[in-house]
């Protein structure tokens, strides 16, 4: 499969799955491209050749995407069974042709959808021609990686609704929500504060909220803490204790975080060198560190379980305990998190989210004049940057739009009353 994607990239057909089960025997074989048994059909290339397709596609774009709905167009596809049209084979890269011949595969032509579907309905219809993963339409041409599913769509909508509601409540100011998708926990929800501080755009504030949380849950503890001996087992102990321990003594953690960093440095340097002098092994140093932390931490440490095994996790610390994730349990910036924004981020915010290593950025209202993720610029397509998140443009559906307006009205009406209504 790797070979195929380098020899015969799908190019404009990236939205299609490469392999489908043989149509007659619909039971799903393992989707391998081991060209041995019949049972799978593998997409090879376009019948007319790519250049023609590009022209064709341009025409389609010119005609507007609406016309494409019925007119899924014809491309070539191949099925393995027996040798086939020698002319067609000759056009394939020799190594591929050889592999096909060896597997006595049969070439045939299939119709496939030319474009990525814009709606779920289109997806359902077009997928009958050729299977495609469902992806939330984003306007982004290149979306690689895991396909978006219906569940993902629901997840997006759930949190976007939050962002939009908060934005409506804040008089239309932009709102950023950062979510840990593993536990579906909201880690930060921030409203634009640029009237107070010119650079406190919603995304900037949200990123800082997450950082503040990290500092509190895993207080800066000098160099030994910063050092991630990711594979060392003793690190796991260190991590297991920290969240519980510190979640219970917020004030301590807070003080710790608020202290000027230079003090930390001095203390840490002193501590580490003294440990050095005692000739302790790294493991012992870790334990020593732990003890120190427990002693210095807070009075609450007495009741806190030293091993960190038992006891309910603090409400916000639970997210980091999610299993099945292999970075050492301390989060690194916003790695793996998703950001939801009511309005498309500007260049500064888009880059801030990129620096923070978010996994996905979902925004609702596009900005043709300022947007950095599709509206005006496409920062996420800069290949040279060291991190890439996926971008989704999730425009309002009509009923949502009405819902938001209604909510806004309600809130205005209820301003005098004691409680606002939830939804």
């Amino acid at each position: 499969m790797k070979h195929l994607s380098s020899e015969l990239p799908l190019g404009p057909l990236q939205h299609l799955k490469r392999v489908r089960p043989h149509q007659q025997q619909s039971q799903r074989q393992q989707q391998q491209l081991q060209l041995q048994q019949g049972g799978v059909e593998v997409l090879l290339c376009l019948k007319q050749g790519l250049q023609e397709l590009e022209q064709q596609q341009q025409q389609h774009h010119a005609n507007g995407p609406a016309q494409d709905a019925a007119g899924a167009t014809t491309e070539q596809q191949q099925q393995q069974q027996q040798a086939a049209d020698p002319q067609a084979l000759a056009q394939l890269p020799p190594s591929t042709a050889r592999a096909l011949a060896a597997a006595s595969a049969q070439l045939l032509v299939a119709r496939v959808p030319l474009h990525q579907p814009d709606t779920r309905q289109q997806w359902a219809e077009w997928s009958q021609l050729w299977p495609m993963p469902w992806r939330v339409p984003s306007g982004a041409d290149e979306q690689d990686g895991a396909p978006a599913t219906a569940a993902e769509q629901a997840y997006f909508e759930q949190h976007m609704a939050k962002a939009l509601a908060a934005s409506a409540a804040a008089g239309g100011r932009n709102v950023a929500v950062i979510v840990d998708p593993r536990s579906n926990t909201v880690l930060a929800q921030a409203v634009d504060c640029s009237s107070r501080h010119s650079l406190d755009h919603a995304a900037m504030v949200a990123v800082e909220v997450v950082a503040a949380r990290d500092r509190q849950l895993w207080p800066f503890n000098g160099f030994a803490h910063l050092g991630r001996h990711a594979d060392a087992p003793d690190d796991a102990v260190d991590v297991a204790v920290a969240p519980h321990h510190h979640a219970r003594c917020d004030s301590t953690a807070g003080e710790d975080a608020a202290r000027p960093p230079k003090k930390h440095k001095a203390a840490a340097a002193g501590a580490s060198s003294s440990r050095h002098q005692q000739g302790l092994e790294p493991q012992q140093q870790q334990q020593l560190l732990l003890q120190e932390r427990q002693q210095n931490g807070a009075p609450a440490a007495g009741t806190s379980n030293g091993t960190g095994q038992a006891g309910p996790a603090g409400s916000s610390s639970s997210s980091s305990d999610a299993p099945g994730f292999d970075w050492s349990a301390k989060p690194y910036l916003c790695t793996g998190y998703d950001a939801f924004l009511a309005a498309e981020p500007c260049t500064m915010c888009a880059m801030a989210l990129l620096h923070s290593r978010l996994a996905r950025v979902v925004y609702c209202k596009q900005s043709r004049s300022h947007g950095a993720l599709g509206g005006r610029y496409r920062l996420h397509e800069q290949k040279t940057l060291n991190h890439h998140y996926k971008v989704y443009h999730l425009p309002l559906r009509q009923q949502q739009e009405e819902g938001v307006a209604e909510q806004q009205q309600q809130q205005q009406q209820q301003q005098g009353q004691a409680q606002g209504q939830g939804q």
Partner: protein
Amino acid sequence: MAHLTSGSSAAASTDTAAVEHPEVQWTAEQQHFMQLAIQQAKEALQDREVPIGCVFVRDGQVIGSGYNMTNHSRNATRHAELEAVDKMLADHGGDASKVQFHRCQLYVTIEPCIMCAGALSLLGIGQVFFGAGNDKFGGCGSIVPVHQQGCGSCTHHDDPQAAAHGAGFPAVGGLFAKEAIQLLQDFYIAGNPAAPKPHRKVMEVPPWQQAQEQQQRQQPMERDA
């Protein structure tokens, strides 16, 4: 702003920049301020932060300075420029118009990244001088020319188009680029303690501290045996 006092410790190695960029004639004043920025970067090195520093200058006076603080803050956006901006805003009651960024020059050891260039555009900075280019995130031409295209604002959901688009700003690089890069090399040789998967072994005591510690230690115990 305690770091700013030692003013003229700098202006020594004047010719480096001129050699690297013979087309740019750096004034003594520019060299002086960039040396102050380098001093900031050295502070960062001592803190085991990525050594990038900057100063903001208005009317020939330093009104703000900062260095990268991403490790301590656990916030990847705490770059030198934004650290300095925060201090300056705090000094001016949070009012950016009182800072008068359009009258300010920024001296920063490494080309402002795309985010910082956006921030500088939003603030309306007058002029940027930087040391070395930044071929990973450079926002003043290396990767994205934010210094030309400016940065809009995403402050409102209702009408994202409404806000004014921040203007571009003049940016010139090459002033003490070698020194700036040398600091980064020093830092990465010792290993970045905050990297999620360090590329190299992180030294517990970086080279630039070893000398100091050896003096302090006064050999109380021998570890070799």
